[in-house]
């Protein structure tokens, strides 16, 4: 009956979202009077999961799973869910989790709700709140199947510490060649740079910055804050910045704690993709720019004057606060 949660790691270390999904699973387990089992694949340690409420860690060590392959990971989760008799399986909203969740749902004949933002509103019927219309609304979705798969939206639940001593058990799922029908040939990943998906803070630039040569100050701000850089769609369309930085309704979603928009007008398609961020700051010369209606804090001013000054202030702040 245990609630099963997939805790993702990278190079052996848990991602922050791993702790968030465990916290969430703990919440569901408490509602249902049951326990939390975390599944880890090739993680170096497992004890830290107890601090967020895992009762048991099922640990897979398998070199074949060193590279992510959706079918194999989904099958490992399916087998763990069956072994634990789990009725609820919780995943994050990482690219990998979103890749494997629908495969897993079919394997378990489970209803799947993605982009869930809160604990179930009721257990029977089992109803969860999720975002829809690209953050322009929410819907309350009832999952009718016996087994349920939940994809938790990033940064929507937060971390909740509850000290548990998680027991540990190793597990060997049975995997065959068909689980590796997608062959990973190469992985090209930026090292030492915060990704938009993982970032707590995102600094984003728009067409107001006039040209790619002016991104130095954006990168500097991101450096100071340990933030990821992003941009509006026209900026990536014009090739000023890579496509991977395009955020918005048709680009990457942003659900950071802080989103700083510089020289971005705040078109509806842009806002839709970044509205899930907690705090929004806008810097724009035009007080009528629609972004001011969506932001928490705003500066009406010229980015070329404000940003360098703000960077200096942020550096001082960081120096005295660390």
């Amino acid at each position, binding site marked *: 009956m245990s609630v099963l949660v997939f805790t993702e790691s990278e190079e052996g270390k848990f991602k922050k979202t791993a702790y968030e999904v465990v916290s969430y699973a703990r919440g569901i387990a408490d509602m249902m009077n049951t326990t939390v089992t975390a599944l880890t694949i090739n993680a170096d340690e497992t004890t830290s999961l107890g601090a967020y409420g895992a009762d048991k860690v099922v640990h897979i060590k398998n070199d074949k799973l060193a590279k992510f392959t959706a079918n194999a990971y989904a099958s490992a989760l399916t087998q763990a869910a069956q072994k634990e008799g789990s009725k609820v399986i919780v995943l994050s909203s990482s690219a990998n989790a979103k890749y494997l969740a629908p495969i897993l749902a079919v394997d378990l004949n489970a209803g799947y709700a993605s982009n869930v933002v809160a604990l179930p509103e009721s257990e029977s019927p089992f109803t969860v709140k999720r975002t829809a219309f690209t953050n322009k609304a929410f819907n309350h979705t009832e999952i009718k199947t016996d087994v349920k798969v939940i994809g938790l939206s990033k940064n929507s639940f937060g971390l909740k510490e509850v000290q548990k001593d998680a027991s540990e058990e190793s597990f060997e799922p049975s995997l065959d060649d068909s689980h590796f029908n997608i062959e990973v040939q190469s992985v090209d990943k930026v090292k030492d740079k915060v990704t938009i998906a993982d970032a707590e803070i995102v600094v984003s630039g728009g067409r107001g910055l006039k040209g790619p040569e002016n991104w130095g100050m954006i990168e500097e701000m991101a450096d100071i804050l340990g933030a990821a850089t992003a941009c509006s769609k026209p900026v990536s*369309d014009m090739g000023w910045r890579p496509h991977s930085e395009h955020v918005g309704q048709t680009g990457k979603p942003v659900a950071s704690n802080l989103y700083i928009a510089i020289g971005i007008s705040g078109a509806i398609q842009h806002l839709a993709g970044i509205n899930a961020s907690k705090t929004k700051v806008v810097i724009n010369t035009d007080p009528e720019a629609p972004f001011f209606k969506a932001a928490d804090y705003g500066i009406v001013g010229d980015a070329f004057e404000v940003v360098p000054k703000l960077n200096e202030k942020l550096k001082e702040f960081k120096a005295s606060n660390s």
Partner: protein
Amino acid sequence: MKILVCISHVPDTTSKINFTDNDTKFDTNGVQFVINPNDEFGLTRAMWFKEKQGATVDIINVGGPETEPTLRKALAIGADSAIRINTEALDGYQVAKELSAVAKEGNYDLIIAGRESIDYNGGMVPGMLANLIGASFVNTCISLEVDGETATAIREIDGGKETVSAKLPLVIGGQKGLVEESDLRIPNMRGIMMARKKPLEVKEPQGAEIETKAVSFEKPAPKGEVKLVSPDNLDELINLLHNEAKVI
């Protein structure tokens, strides 16, 4: 090569989102519907396969008669024929099951769907469909080449990309990158005329079970006024971000 492109019919990105019937239904009043942007990238990529390597391109939608103008538009862009499965799409699992029946029957080499639809944002139909028909599956696909029985795809991952290869039949969850914005095609007069004569077959549904159901909708709480900070008082902004919002 036989290609099937899944088309979801969604409100245009500028639409104001409202609900009726006690917040249980999406208010379509004054809303313009379009081809889901992720599907439009996929459809254009399919046109390139057709033109460069030779392929037939069928399109499919699970939905009521109201989706037909969207299908006609996709035909005007260049798809060869359309299928509409005549039932209201209420759940991604249901849609995937309905699609799987046609997908199996048609023996497609390649099925192109979108990473997600911009209305339901389920991000579930392509992966479920692939699993139901036992095809290979690549999600968040930003580049796709097919050579004989093998496809090489690039998948967007958090913080980078990954190149993978897979045997056909293949289902992808596609997005921008498959083609660029500037490659998208606006139907011309000739295309629109031809589209009227292309086959649009209406099939009755299998009657797949509805596993998840959106019971009601809610709009986000209205946001408070923005706090304006003078550009000459940046310490105040840092103070607010640190002490009030607690985000730095």
